[in-house]
């Protein structure tokens, strides 16, 4: 017993002592703060490290929203040198709080659109919906699943879409119709797409899902065709940005990293790694993308101040859905 407690006391004291000495920052490393969906291949990491001479360390700080919030709360003592993944809905908030040193650079974008299951509609001999307005029609009753605007960024993007399309006084009316038409709301995009949607691996019950214009490229079957397609009108474009954090311990390396995100090799790998389109339009897209997953035809809602209004929108929306 006595020995156990002595050992315990030593453990506590040594661990507190360990915590007391400040960790030394190596000028040769660069710490990138990013969201949980960030994917980078080992080849790309190696390319960055050999060309720049800096070692890359990743800090994945939750989803885009909580990552941005952490950066705002800790801006006096940032948790890294550079940030990747602040999107246009949070850009205003990031700028307002001056969390970056200088401007944020756009790196990639994705278009939030509805996807439908081609095979399902063919089997039922039902015409596919042509735009989001048609989703309230009775022939599409109980067919649509979306993700919750409070807990998913695609859900928030669609809420913004409806505000852009129907105005501040009309959007709740549209949502009420959707609700009466058997709309299913789930927590996250993954639940909606992989569990509830009939056209993906989960083989769920809903043939229409809120997803991205790029998603059909992942549903190419043995016959060389995609089982799904997107409704490419009235989509919401999410653009992701990267920048140097203010107060970064290694701003020079952070700047080199942001430049690397704009480089040909990083841009070309974006579709395969993160299912987003490279911001550099000269970058060649994979074949499955040009065939089945082109970007949206028309966009809406880009002028909306999402960060500034989301609290009020969510409150009104929640009142309808509870």
């Amino acid at each position: 017993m006595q020995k156990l407690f002595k050992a315990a006391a030593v453990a506590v004291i040594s661990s507190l002592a360990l915590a007391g000495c400040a960790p030394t920052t190596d000028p040769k490393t660069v710490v990138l703060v990013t969201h949980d969906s960030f994917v980078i291949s080992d080849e790309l990491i190696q390319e960055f490290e050999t060309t720049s001479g800096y070692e890359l360390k990743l800090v994945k700080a939750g989803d885009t929203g909580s990552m941005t919030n952490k950066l705002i709360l800790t801006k006096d003592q940032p948790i890294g040198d550079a940030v990747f993944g602040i999107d246009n809905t949070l850009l205003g908030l990031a700028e307002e709080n001056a969390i970056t040193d200088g401007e944020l650079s756009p790196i990639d974008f994705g278009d939030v659109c509805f996807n439908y299951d081609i095979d399902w509609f063919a089997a039922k001999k039902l015409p596919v919906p042509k735009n989001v307005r048609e989703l309230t029609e009775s022939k599409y009753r109980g067919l649509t699943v979306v993700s919750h605007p409070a807990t998913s960024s695609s859900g928030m993007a669609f809420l913004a879409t409806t505000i852009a399309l129907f105005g501040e006084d009309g959007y709740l009316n549209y949502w009420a119709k959707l609700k009466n038409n058997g709309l299913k709301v789930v927590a996250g995009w993954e639940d909606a797409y992989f569990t509830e949607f009939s056209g993906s691996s989960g083989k769920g019950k809903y043939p229409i899902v809120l997803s991205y214009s790029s998603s059909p490229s992942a549903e190419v079957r043995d016959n060389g065709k995609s089982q799904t397609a997107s409704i490419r009108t009235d989509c919401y474009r999410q653009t992701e940005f990267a920048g140097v954090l203010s107060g970064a311990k290694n701003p020079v390396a952070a700047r080199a990293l942001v430049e690397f995100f704009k480089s040909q090799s990083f841009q070309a790998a974006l579709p395969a790694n993160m299912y987003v389109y490279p911001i550099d339009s000269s970058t060649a897209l994979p074949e499955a993308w040009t065939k089945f997953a082109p970007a949206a035809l028309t966009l809406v809602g880009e002028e909306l101040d999402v960060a500034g209004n989301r609290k009020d929108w969510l409150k009104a929306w929640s009142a309808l859905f509870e």
Partner: protein
Amino acid sequence: MSKRLAGWSIPLIFLGVLFFWPLANILNRGFAGDWALHLVDLRDWQITWFTVWQALVSTAITLVLAVPSAYILYRKSFPGQRLVRSLITIPFMLPTIVVATGFTIFRDAANLWSDAIVWIIAAHVFLNYALAVRTIGSYWMSLDLQTEEAAALSGAGRLRTVWSISLPQLQPALISATASTFLYCTASYGLILVLGGGQVDSLETEIAAAANTLLDLPKASALALIQTMLSVVAFGVSQTGGRSNIGIELGDHDGEVKRVDRKDWPAFLITAAVVVFLVAAPMIQIFWKAATEGAGLVQNFANLTSLGTRNVLNISVVDAGLNSLRNMFISATIALVIGVTVSYLLAQPTKSRSQVLVNRVLDVMFLLPLGISTVVLGFGYLVTFGGYPLPLRETWLIVPLIQSVMAVPLVVRLIYPALAALDRNHIEAAATAGANRWQSFWLIELPMVRFSLYTAAAFAALVSLGEFGAASLLAYGDQATLPTVLYSLISKPGGDNYGMAMAASTFIIVLTFAVVFVISRENRPEPKPKRNGLA
């Protein structure tokens, strides 16, 4: 007096630096804004009301089920009783994320009630049933049974005996069980998050949403204030109505009790139904899913070394498990050292009135971390420990430290009553024999409360293992813990992720069962010498 003061300095510095300082820091930011507006916001009160009523309903059902079970499992005996006692204890010790997972399977398979609240209440009952059974049962066992027996002899039915004789006697234990169950149900976070699919708002999930998604610190602070008041009320009830020395014993002291007989069938049936349908079924569902989901048993377990489909994890489940084990060891050690010191100091005999009052205040102070939103405290850590003078955020120690703060109240609750109940004669005898204060504490008092010590160690370890709210904020990147990777896997299904989550849950359940079983074995008291030495 000054010696006592010196003894208090370490625990007080611990609590001040790791609890009050970050808490003050974050609340300060919140209360700088328009927090008061949230106290008059109807929606915030609707959320508060929801939190209270779901906790009340959960608590009521838990108690109604726990009384007959306490009777069967502690007042009577039957073969296999110890195993059942261990079995029902697992849910209370499991990470809430695992519990929630078990009930989501139930919900999806049964397709009975789509209403999330039914499942949230069921899961709360599942979690707290053991806590209530053990609290009531161990107290019941310590009661003098003569009145009950006399009533039975004079012809009163068993139900009537329990209703009019036993329940009034059990009042302190009933109040204590009610207060702690209520407390756990109001502070529930991960469970409501998963079972509610992010669409059911309780105080704790709304605090997390306000702080995490909306960066609305005034709102988070206002709600945290309401939640703390609720906790204080629950504490107050348990302190005045209950008796503070009612412990949650993990050990099984088998008193002299009678075998289950035919007249016990209602209580026996209720207990059997609860054990089979509420306790065992969700866990069996998880085992079943781990074996059949996706790629099958072997592959699901093999996947635990991977990052999941679409690399949804930052580190593999195995690596997260290693982080959790490391955190568990460090945090339980710290919590034990601090908790035992506090208990020792509180248990010192005192005569002066002012000292009694001071002790009372200190007691409540060390209980406070139980009643504070873990999410709020997590944010406090985030803003407080970024750099000078304590750059804890840069080290992995931040997670075990915050978890140790949460475990200290439990350790104190277990050790302090045990120390206070010790026979002072032994200790004074040691003092007369020349032992100094520390010698007598180390060599006499601590060994005498070793069962409580084992229990406290297990509780502290499992608090750290299951803790989700603070870890989800602070343990990002390569510091992820078992509950946080489990949440990622459950909330991001598709591909192999779901099967992986089931395999990981299976592993945690087996591990927890092992801990509970070993502890309750260790705690079996020495067999009493038979009256006839030869027999």
